């Protein structure tokens, strides 16, 4: 099964409530997948600054010395905000590459997402517990996506949880399963993409990243996915300024959307949307199969 949600705000007045709204949406989907959960929140970017969200299985050992350990690579620009098993490193954007290299060399630290706007938190456990652990309801932002997983094709681990992020400020959540991901992964590796897991969804995320790196926008990359990805999928994708939805041509994985003057929302079921402000008068519809939907700020 799996449950996926997404919320793209048009009304800036709702931005302080993004984390709270998205959290409530995801918790309603708990029955669709109790294995692990994750949320990506796009906050306001700060000029010249980049963010790296990292995860560690030993946060008490690894995180206290992290800022000092990155001082050289970041030229003293890195600051570390710890949230449970994750930490958000904020740094001078120009130092991103050396800091990522330093993180890779440290061991015991995994990167869940990078970019100017996105922060990604994911862990094994029920959505309500994962959300509380990272205090997601307190987070503000312009858009976000979330996922609760019922694992079918790869291990239940923190890095096997969604969202998957394979490019700066890009992430993806997926309900379904792909059947040609091993071949695609080999092809993408040859193009220089690297993978953290054996998960099919990570391949879909990397595919979109590679297509967008080649000059496509999100909508064009999703059109390509219809040709190149084989299997069952409902995807919700986030980029720095955009939010997209795609269902495979068979469309057996459920999807409901709602739009008002204040937001565009996605849920695996209507239950996920039922607590949103103004839902009773929103336009509610099911996205069509094999049809790309995307919105940009």
């Amino acid at each position, binding site marked *: 099964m799996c449950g996926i949600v997404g919320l793209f705000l048009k009304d800036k007045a709702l931005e302080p409530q993004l984390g709270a709204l998205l959290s409530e949406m995801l918790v309603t989907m708990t029955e669709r997948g109790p294995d692990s959960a994750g949320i990506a929140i796009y906050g306001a970017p700060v000029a010249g600054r980049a963010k790296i969200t990292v995860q560690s299985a030993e946060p008490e050992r690894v995180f206290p010395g992290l800022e000092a350990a990155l001082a050289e690579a970041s030229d003293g620009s890195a600051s570390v905000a710890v949230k449970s098993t994750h930490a958000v490193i904020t740094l001078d954007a120009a130092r991103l590459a050396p800091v990522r290299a330093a993180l890779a060399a440290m061991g015991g630290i995994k990167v869940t997402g990078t970019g100017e706007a996105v922060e990604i938190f994911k862990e094994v456990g029920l959505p309500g517990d994962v959300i509380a652990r990272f205090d997601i309801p307190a987070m503000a932002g312009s858009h976000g996506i979330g996922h609760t997983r019922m694992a079918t094709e790869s291990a239940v681990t923190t890095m096997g949880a969604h969202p998957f992020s394979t490019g700066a400020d890009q992430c993806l959540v997926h309900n379904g399963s792909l059947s040609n991901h091993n071949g695609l992964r080999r092809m993408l590796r040859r193009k220089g993409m690297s993978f953290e897991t054996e998960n099919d969804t990570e391949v879909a995320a990397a595919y979109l990243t590679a297509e967008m790196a080649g000059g496509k926008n999100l909508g064009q990359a999703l059109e390509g996915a219809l040709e190149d990805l084989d299997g069952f999928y409902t995807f919700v994708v986030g980029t720095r300024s955009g939010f997209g939805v795609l269902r495979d041509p068979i*469309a057996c994985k459920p999807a409901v959307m709602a739009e008002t003057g204040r937001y565009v929302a996605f849920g695996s*079921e*209507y239950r996920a949307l*039922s607590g949103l402000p103004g839902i009773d008068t929103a336009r*509610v519809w099911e996205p069509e*199969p094999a049809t790309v939907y995307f919105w940009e700020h």
Partner: protein
Amino acid sequence: MPVIDLATTPLRALNQALHDAAAPGHNDTAFEVLNPRGAHAVAVGIAAPVSVDVKGSVGYYCGGMNEQARITVHGSAGPGVAENMMSGTVVIKGDASQYAGATGRGGLLVIEGNAASRCGISMKGINIVVHGNIGHMSAFMAQSGTLVVLGDAGEALGDSLYEARLFVRGAVKSLGADCIAKEMRPEHLAVLAGLLAEAGITDVKPQEFTRYGSARRLYNFDIDNADAY
């Protein structure tokens, strides 16, 4: 009239009250359900001639296995609405998600908005009237009963159809294997007129529809048909 608010009453209590209505000595004939908020399995397994008005949108399998009851959803319905209905009436004022009326054996399902994919899949005697459009793979392996669509049908309508009758007023994107357009004879016009009347539709004429049915080439496996599978 009992009013059951799902914001404060568990779903099982609602369904139990509706099941109890079939027992001797129960005189409630009309129920109202508030705050469904997309809940699954609302008003399933009723076996009494009661009316149930659901004020809002429901999730999976609303009205499943219904016998005799008249269930009206004043909102939209999730997947599998009226699945395996035996008799009675289910009316959806909004849209219905995939596989509406799946495997239904009797009764009438009216969807006043659109229905998504696989509407009437494997229907076995149910009648379904959709005011709007239906999605792809509708009436797949439909065995008996009637599907009436006032709007358009998606891809592969009636694939591997048995003896269900399909009437579509608008365009059909494509027909599935062994489904063909058929001549509309007086007995078909009469069936259609009856169903339109039963669904409360007065501004549409039976002559505006095209009838589709099985070409009856796939009933039994024949090696010469292998290309059609």
